[in-house]
Every structure is written in structure tokens, then in C-alpha cells.
């Protein structure tokens, strides 16, 4: 039966193609046999029994949960391959994209956020706030298409869709994700630094004649870093969701694209694996942030309550 499933495998269709069919009533089975014309009811029933889809919903859930706890995430309905190896083989591409996007976000938004805070209510602050506002109102798939049009089609600097997970084809997806994230993050960095700059010790240091640059670099940034890092970790959640859309636009071969393809084919084991893995990564990132916070803030480390 495994080979039969492999034969029936269809090339995952694009979102728009999948959308043209009315998918409301379709399940995994109709997706699997959909384009093959009339299929005998016995074949459908046999396939349902094999995949366990004839059992009640609760039974399906617990058999999945039981497998999950043993590290078995099931087999893909479409390809007949085991989910776990498929998933792990695609994970590095997504992690690479995420890491590059975070790096670029940090490089863009921290200096700009600090600049806006230092020049509070001056012209550069207004320009940066305006840019961040524009960035916040742009859906990331629109940014992706704009970049594609500009960099790949008009200027012909980059390939339109990625050809493998190379650094060169990572530029556009990274830039897309970083633009959306920087717009949000820059505002937060600015607000954090501004709050720190308004504290009494800054006024005190100024009164004692400490140079502004020394105050900024040695005191203000050092104490703002904690909040800045926490906020960065919190925004990783939206980044993980964003990678799904961006990966499928740029044909980046990661878990996000895998998940979107699986959703279009109603390949439940893959969808479940994707959600569980993303939740695990998200929780892990939050845990690491908590630990980092602990290491960075002496008040927490020494058990002194804040303020």
C-alpha cells in the first residue's frame, strides 16, 4: 500500500490553484484520489481504514499522541514517507532563514531605534517613526512581491525564486522578514531607550558633566539591553508564522513551505508535526530568554526584587 500511496502522489499545488477548487468539503482521501476520476468506494474505504481515518476523532487523536510520545510522528499520507525524517531534513533551511532574519533585524533596528530615541522629536526621529509606521502597515507577502519586482525583475540582481538554500537566494526572503520585524522592533527599542534616558541617573550624570556619548554607551544601552533582548525573543513567534508565507512565495525549501503544501493536500500528520515543532521551538526560545535574563540582570540573579 505504501507504493500505491507513492504512485498517487501529486505535485503539491500552489495556493491559488488549490483555492480554485472548492475545498470546503474535501478531506485527506478526496485530496489523495481527487483527480483520478471515479474511484471505487471499496478502495476509498480500504485507504481510510489503513490511515485510521475511519475511527472516531478522539481515538485518532490518542493514537497520534501515543505515537508522538514514542517519537513516532506518523507517515505522510501523500508521499508515504515518515514525517520525522522529512521534517528534520527541511528544518535547517528554516532555521537558517530565521537566524539570518533576526540578525538583519538586530543590525537594522537597534541602531535606528537608538538614533530615533537620542534625536527625540527632531527631524530624524520623525522620519524613522514614519518609516516604521509604513513598515508596520505593509503585509509581508506584499513586501515580498515588491522586492521580487524590484530586485529580481527590474534590476535583475537576484534570482526570482530560490535555487537551493544558498546565501544568495536567501537575501530576498531574509530582507522581507527583516523589514516587517524591524518596523515593529525599532519602535520598541526607541521607547525602551527613551524611557531609560528619562531616568534620574541620566540627569545626574549630565549634571556632573559626564559626556553624552559615555552616558549613552556605558549606562543607558547597558540597562536597556535586557528589555531589548526580551522584546526580540517575543517577536520570534510572529517570525515563525511569517516564514510559512515567505517560504512558499520564494520557494524556499523549509518547513514553512512543507507545511503550506501539506495544508493544501490535507496531509494531517505533516501539519500536526509542524504545529508541534513550532510550539516546541517557541517555548524553547522563551525559556532561553528567561535564562538569559537571569544571567544578564544581577538583580534577578541575586534575588533582589526589582525597584
Amino acid at each position, binding site marked *: 500500500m505504501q507504493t500505491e500511496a507513492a504512485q498517487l502522489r501529486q505535485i503539491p499545488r500552489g495556493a491559488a490553484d488549490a483555492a480554485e477548487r472548492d475545498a470546503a468539503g474535501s478531506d485527506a482521501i478526496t485530496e489523495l484520489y481527487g483527480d483520478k476520476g471515479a474511484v471505487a468506494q471499496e478502495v476509498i474505504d480500504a485507504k481510510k481504514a489503513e490511515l485510521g481515518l475511519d475511527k472516531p476523532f478522539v481515538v485518532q487523536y490518542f493514537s497520534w499522541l501515543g505515537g508522538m510520545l514514542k517519537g513516532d510522528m506518523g507517515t505522510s499520507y501523500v508521499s508515504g514517507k515518515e514525517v520525522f525524517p522529512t521534517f528534520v531534513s527541511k528544518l535547517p533551511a528554516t532555521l537558517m532563514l530565521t537566524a539570518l532574519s533576526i540578525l538583519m533585524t538586530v543590525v537594522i533596528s537597534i541602531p535606528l531605534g537608538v538614533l530615533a530615541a537620542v534625536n527625540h522629536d527632531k527631524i530624524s526621529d520623525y522620519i524613522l517613526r514614519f518609516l516604521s509606521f509604513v513598515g508596520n502597515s505593509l503585509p509581508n507577502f506584499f513586501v515580498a512581491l515588491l522586492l521580487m519586482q524590484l530586485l529580481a525583475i527590474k534590476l535583475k540582481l537576484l534570482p526570482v525564486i530560490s535555487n537551493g538554500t544558498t546565501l544568495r537566494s536567501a537575501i530576498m526572503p531574509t530582507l522581507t522578514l527583516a523589514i516587517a520585524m524591524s518596523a515593529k522592533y525599532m519602535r520598541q527599542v526607541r521607547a525602551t531607550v527613551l524611557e531609560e534616558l528619562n531616568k534620574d541617573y541620566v540627569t545626574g550624570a549630565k549634571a556632573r558633566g559626564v559626556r553624552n556619548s559615555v552616558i549613552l554607551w556605558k549606562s543607558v544601552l547597558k540597562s536597556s539591553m535586557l528589555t531589548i533582548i526580551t522584546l526580540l525573543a517575543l517577536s*520570534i513567534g510572529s517570525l515563525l508564522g511569517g516564514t510559512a508565507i515567505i517560504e512558499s512565495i520564494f520557494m524556499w525549501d523549509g518547513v514553512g513551505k512543507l507545511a503550506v503544501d501539506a495544508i493544501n493536500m490535507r496531509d494531517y500528520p505533516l501539519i500536526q508535526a509542524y*504545529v508541534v515543532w513550532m510550539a516546541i521551538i517557541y517555548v524553547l526560545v522563551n525559556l532561553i530568554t528567561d535564562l538569559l535574563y537571569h544571567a544578564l540582570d544581577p538583580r534577578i540573579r541575586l534575588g533582589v526584587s526589582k525597584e
Partner: protein
Amino acid sequence: MSEPTVRIQKIRRDTVKTRLIIFGTLAFLLLIGSIFSEHLTPYDPYLQDLSNAKAAPSAAHPFGTDRYGRDMLSRVIVGSRASIYSTLLLVAIITMIGTGVGVFCGWHGKWIDTVLMRISDMFLAFPGLVFALAVAGVLGGGLQNAIIALAAISWPKYARIARSQTLSQKETPYLKAARLSGSGTWKIIFKHILPNIMGPILVTSMLDIGTMMMELAGLSFLGLGAKPPIAEWGSMMSDTRSLITTVPWVTFAPGLAIFVSVMIFNLLGDTIRDYADPKSRSSS
């Protein structure tokens, strides 16, 4: 830095009022426009004219035409109804569910509060859009299912705000007085608690409209929301994205529409927040 003088405070208040009027009017026009969108289109948005397909933007067709020769401007105008109203419906749903659950938890307390709050914690542990993708995927696309998926992940935020607000209201002397004077539970909740806690909740929902519009359009873009031939901005972009190399305006017109509407709602949301809470203004 010193406290702003009374004069500066008054000037700031006045600018916020002006902004409120401007952005409120813009948002209102957008809503009215999308109600009557069918009467505002220069052409029939579903009428195909293959002899005039993929026409470049011109005076007759400001946004050009798509591959079936349909006028893009008309399609974008008609698309506003699906895009804007489904977003407003979504925000209304999550505000009501979240507030309902939050007030109930805060008022009732005990085990049911614990259970519902742990459930909301569970939802908050997932990266939002990932969960919405999966829910929409399992439900099988369609605008209605996309709204359900996004509602399922977004209510906990409102529940948390409503719960903490209710808890603080519960401790106020006036509420104790109301109870002592014999007001029933429903009267207290609807006449005293809700009017007092709606401020922060409504500000949050106003600020959420832009984000929700983008997420809904994102789901439609992936084929998990509105489906062609229904004119909806996200699905229009996905539908035409293969044409980006030859006729980019077909894809960019609905994108521009999303951008402008999200911007208007974001500006309105920010202004309402500033209006409701003048303290946050100086730092944001």
C-alpha cells in the same frame, strides 16, 4: 526631562483631537465606501473582456486590467467589502468572546477561572499565525473558516485584559456598595463592570484591526481564506502573482489597497490610544 507645561499639554490634546477627526473621517469614508462598493465601480468587476486583457494602467483603467480583461480598479473597490467587513467581523467576534470569558473568569473566580485561564495560556504558547494556518488548513479554507481560525488564536489576549480589569473593579468601594444595595449579578456586570472596563478593551481592538486585516489577507493569499472568483484583496494578489513579471500592477493594486486601509486603521487606533491615555503619548 521636565514635565511638559500646561500649555504644551493643551496643544498636544488639541492635535490629538484634530488627528482623531481626520483619521476617523477617513476610516468612516472607507467603511461607507465598502458598503456601497458595488455602486462605486466604473465597470462590472466580474465582466471579462479578453480583447482588453492585461492592459497597462490608463485613464480608462487606472489600475489596468487582469488576464481576463477585468478592470482592476473595480475589482479592488469591490474587494474592499470582503476584506474590510470580514476583518471588522473578526475583531468584533474576538472582542466579544474574549471580554465574555474574561469578565466571567474575573467575576466567578474559583476553579472555572483556573481552567479557562490555563486554556488561554495554552493558546498563547503557540506562535499565533502557525496555529491559525493549521486550523484553517484542517477546516479547509474559505473566508468563514479563516475567520474562525484567527478568532481561535486571538481571543486569549482580550480575555486576559478583561479578567484583570474585572478583578480590579471588583475591589472598588462603589461596586461593594452596589452589591450591598441589592443589585443582581447581571445588573452589576452590564451596568457597572462592562462600561468601566470597555475603554482599554476597545483601544486594544482598534489597534488590532490593522494586524487582523493583514493576517486575514495572508491566509487568503495562501489559499486558506476567500477564494477566487470572489474579489478579496489577499486572494486577488495570490491569483495574479504569476503575472508579476509581465503585468505587475494587477498584483500591486490590491496590495496597495491593503496597505492604505491598514495604515488608516493603524493611525486611527494609535490616535484613539493617545486620546484615551495621554500619558503613553510622549513615549510612543
